């Protein structure tokens, strides 16, 4: 029964969620080879800061073992290896291989050009590095400008160059790419745990508590609002409510399935969520960075609870991380990068994990109370597993593997970090950038037309309920937490 999840292992070969785990673990394994002295990932092309008017070296191999490699060779190997990997995944997912290959190639080229532009020194170099690049002026936007450029380019394609968007569409899989990146982030968190174990686990625990509290508040408030103020039918209210208040499209689909709503309801709500997630992503990083420049972790956690869809949340967290770290550096405070992003992803991952349980509870309520057909229907607990985000398994595995290295084999930390350094940083950021371009390409703002009450409810709920409560809850659980200082 293709397309049906029946056994616990169904989907392992053909679902994107599982392919995020496989791609994550392939590179995780390749990175680990550095323990035995083989840098199997150091060929990866990472962007390097360059100065306008000077001979351009835009990329270089990330590993020291590949120091002499030219940027053309490094980019070429990166393209070939990654194209082979994602095409393998696309094949098993039964995507149109020709369209996927061409679309992926297009996305790769667009992303690498946008990132290279974003690393121009006048745009990205922090003020304390102007001397190094011989600059007299600059915007000091950090590498966040590359992230923003990728998004903007994607949005321009998605909204103004629709034939190109259609050409790229088969390969525009932002959730697949970001989930793969989040598995790599597991390595990063593992490495961070080696340095600051207490802070990492405190962040995870605070994220779980905050998420739980936010859940209990968001859903009932917005459901009542949808039913009483906006007069939405019960099914529409429940699906939209989960989409707005929990984790976006996956929550809308999970809830739609749990309450046995017509699929069209979940699909329409999902279209709305994707567009709104982009709006949140464009506004919130700058807003939080400006309004609360001294609350990096609170901002990150609030972002995770506010911005829907993993891709948009990761993008927002990454952009805010870059902006806030660069702004703090301009004030003479040098925070370690990626802690703000980690805060935003951790709350989001908790939310993603809870959705399976929440949908199960809703299914029981609906089957046994709302649409009661005594004795005729059963809800199986396996539904929780089918809705569990599998990429989290890869994330947690990578995280705890590196924690285990630190605890049980500290003498190999140094060599383990060589491979991990490439996978958790340039490779992860590459998948982020691909996500941003892909997400922009599939976001068509014109889809908001005709959404009427749904769009209005989403906007009102976001501004009046979600964002303020998320920030308050994030503050309660994360107040006082700060990223470690560089070199501390």
């Amino acid at each position, binding site marked *: 029964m293709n397309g049906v999840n029946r056994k616990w292992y169904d989907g392992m070969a053909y679902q994107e969620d599982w392919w995020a785990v496989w791609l994550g673990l392939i590179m995780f394994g390749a990175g680990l080879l550095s323990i035995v002295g083989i840098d199997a990932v150091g060929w990866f092309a990472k962007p390097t800061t360059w100065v306008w008017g000077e001979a351009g070296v835009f990329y270089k191999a990330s590993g020291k073992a590949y120091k002499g490699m030219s940027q053309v060779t490094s980019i070429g190997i990166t393209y070939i290896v990654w194209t082979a990997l994602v095409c393998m995944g696309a094949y098993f997912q039964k995507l149109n291989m020709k369209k996927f290959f061409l679309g992926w190639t297009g996305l790769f080229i667009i992303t690498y050009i946008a990132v290279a532009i974003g690393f121009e020194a006048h745009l990205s170099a922090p003020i304390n590095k102007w001397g190094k690049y011989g600059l007299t002026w600059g915007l000091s936007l950090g590498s966040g400008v590359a992230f923003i450029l990728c998004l903007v380019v994607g949005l321009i394609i998605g909204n103004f160059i629709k034939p190109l968007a259609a050409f790229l569409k088969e390969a525009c899989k932002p959730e697949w790419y970001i989930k793969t990146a989040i598995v790599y982030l597991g390595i990063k968190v593992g490495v961070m745990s080696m340095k600051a174990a207490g802070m990492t686990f405190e962040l995870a625990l605070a994220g779980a508590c905050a998420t739980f509290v936010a859940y209990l508040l968001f859903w009932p408030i917005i459901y009542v609002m949808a039913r009483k103020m906006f007069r939405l039918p019960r099914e529409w209210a429940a699906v939209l409510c989960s989409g707005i208040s929990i984790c976006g499209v996956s929550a809308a689909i999970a809830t739609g*399935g749990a309450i046995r709503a017509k699929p069209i309801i979940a699909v329409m709500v999902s279209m709305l969520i994707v567009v709104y997630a982009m709006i949140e992503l464009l506004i919130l990083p700058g807003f939080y960075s400006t309004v609360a420049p001294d609350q990096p972790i609170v901002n990150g956690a609030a972002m995770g609870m506010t911005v829907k869809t993993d891709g948009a949340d990761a993008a927002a967290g990454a952009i805010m991380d870059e902006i806030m770290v660069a702004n703090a550096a301009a004030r003479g405070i040098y925070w370690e990068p990626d802690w703000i992003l980690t805060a935003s992803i951790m709350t989001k991952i908790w939310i993603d994990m809870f959705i399976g349980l929440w949908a199960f509870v809703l299914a029981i309520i609906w089957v046994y109370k709302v649409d009661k057909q005594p004795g005729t229907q059963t809800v199986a607990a396996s539904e929780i597993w089918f809705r569990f985000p599998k990429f989290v398994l890869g994330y947690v595995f990578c995280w705890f593997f590196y924690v285990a290295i630190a605890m049980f084999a500290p003498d190999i930390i140094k060599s383990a970090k060589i491979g991990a350094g490439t996978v958790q940083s340039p490779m992860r950021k590459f998948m982020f950038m691909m996500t941003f371009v892909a997400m922009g390409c599939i976001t068509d703002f014109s889809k908001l037309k005709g959404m009427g009450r749904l769009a209005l409810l989403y906007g009102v709920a976001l501004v009046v309920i979600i964002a303020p409560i998320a920030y308050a809850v994030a503050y309660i659980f994360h107040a006082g937490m700060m990223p470690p200082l560089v070199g501390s």
Partner: protein
Amino acid sequence: MKADIDMVISHDGEKWIARNDSMAVEGRSFPELDANLVESLRETGRYDGSHLTVFMGFDITTIPSWIHQYAPHYFNRYVHVDV
């Protein structure tokens, strides 16, 4: 959970449709679908007097493919019927 009969369920915009190799039943609501299922089972003459568990797994491929990356599962339902 074990089932006596496995079916695939989808929605065509108006009706729920459950089918397998030997039968297909429709209904605008689940009670109507389940009633039609019992009727179809009776017509086969193979299950008279039986208490059956029917598995209906939603065919996710009937949902637009761009959504699969966010959620690869819609729902499964187990229906208990007396034929």
